[in-house]
């Protein structure tokens, strides 16, 4: 998909990956998430917890929500809290969030005992987002994070992403809509050679 790609992301920085459709933004994120093995090259995380892969330090927030329609909103979220192993390397200091608190923050508290089948696309997306807060992990890999979200939710998402960076986390996001995070680097994928700005 891509060759000759090399970049380093310092702690507490965001990285916005841009480029035309089909250039490999999603593939890059899936490679970082360990879901696609790179045919060449390597990936390393400085200061990582021992015995954990880079992927186990990361949350992948992709196009698919991983929400089970037959379970209630709260059951969906509590499962991920129990199931995912948190990663808290040095320098990453998130505030722990309880499932009900994050549902309230994201405006989903009234749906917490409803089956997730009744949620709208945007609400399902917000429920998927809530997963990132119940299990602290320093790296967020976000593929088009703003899709299906309304303006208010988009603003809230940006606020939450900024808070994650302030806590010492890292965000790699592929997007077409301009996202304002600071400090933030941009990676422009192009047909020939890529260079981080």
């Amino acid at each position, binding site marked *: 998909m891509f060759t000759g790609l090399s970049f380093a992301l310092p702690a507490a920085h965001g990285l916005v990956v841009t480029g035309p459709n089909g250039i490999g933004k999603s593939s890059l994120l*899936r490679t970082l*998430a*360990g*879901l*696609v093995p790179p045919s060449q090259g390597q990936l390393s995380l400085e200061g990582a917890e021992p015995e*954990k892969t880079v*992927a*186990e330090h*990361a949350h*992948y927030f*992709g*196009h*698919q*929500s*991983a*929400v*089970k*329609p*037959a*379970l209630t909103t709260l*059951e969906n979220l*509590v*499962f*991920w*809290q*129990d*199931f*995912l*192993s948190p*990663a808290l390397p040095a320098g990453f200091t998130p505030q*722990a969030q*309880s*499932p009900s608190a994050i549902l309230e923050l994201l405006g989903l508290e009234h749906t917490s005992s409803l089956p997730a089948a009744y949620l709208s696309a945007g609400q399902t997306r917000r429920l998927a987002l809530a*997963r990132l807060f119940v299990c602290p992990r320093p790296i967020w890999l976000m593929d088009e994070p703003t899709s299906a979200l309304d303006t208010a939710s988009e603003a809230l998402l940006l606020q939450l992403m900024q808070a994650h960076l302030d806590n010492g986390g890292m965000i790699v996001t592929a997007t077409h809509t301009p996202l304002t995070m600071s400090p933030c680097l941009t990676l422009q994928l192009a047909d020939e050679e890529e260079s981080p700005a």
Partner: protein
Amino acid sequence: MTSPENNWALALLQRELRLAVRIGGGALVGVLFFLAVVTVIPFGVGPDLNLLARIGPAILWIGALLATLLGLDRLFQADRDDGTLDLMLMAGRPLELVVLIKCLAHWLATGLPLVLAAPILGIFLNLEPLAMGAVTATLLAGTPALTLIGAVGAALTVSLRRGGLLLAVLVVPLTIPVLIFGVSAANAALVVGTPFKVPFVVLCALSLISGVVGPVAAAMALRFSAD
């Protein structure tokens, strides 16, 4: 608010069981299919009670095999379709154990009802009480092997559309040993002088072996299935 670190296995088991019994889950479909297969056989074979009693254990075993295969294609595919599988691969939990727990939940939701239904269906097939007991015991010992062997096929066909047919073709030959030893142990109750213990112990061994080989092989297949 944080739960203890080793609660993840219980959380997964609980979720899988919930999904199986709620709308869209396949918990009762297997046992209804089992009922359908077993009730159809006497109509096909005819009203020969002795013949039915003789082939009864085999019919129950084949019915259980088909009913187990019925729901297996969704074991991992449902999770792959909505992105859950990606997150499970990244969860930081041993994938072999995740597969084993998913199989356990699948067996509790679809295999165990088959075992419980077997004595009742045995009445339809004119089985003696002793033979009913033998079939039920062999199904209890052997259906976990069917689920675990099927899980390997489910993991291999996870990325295929309509993988269920291929799954059946892949899995049925591998389940032949289970079927042979299961039916021969159950037949011990019908035919005087045939041993029960030896085939039953082999059947238990097959379940235990597939409990080790199945999750390891299925986890390997799932890791390679990510594209």
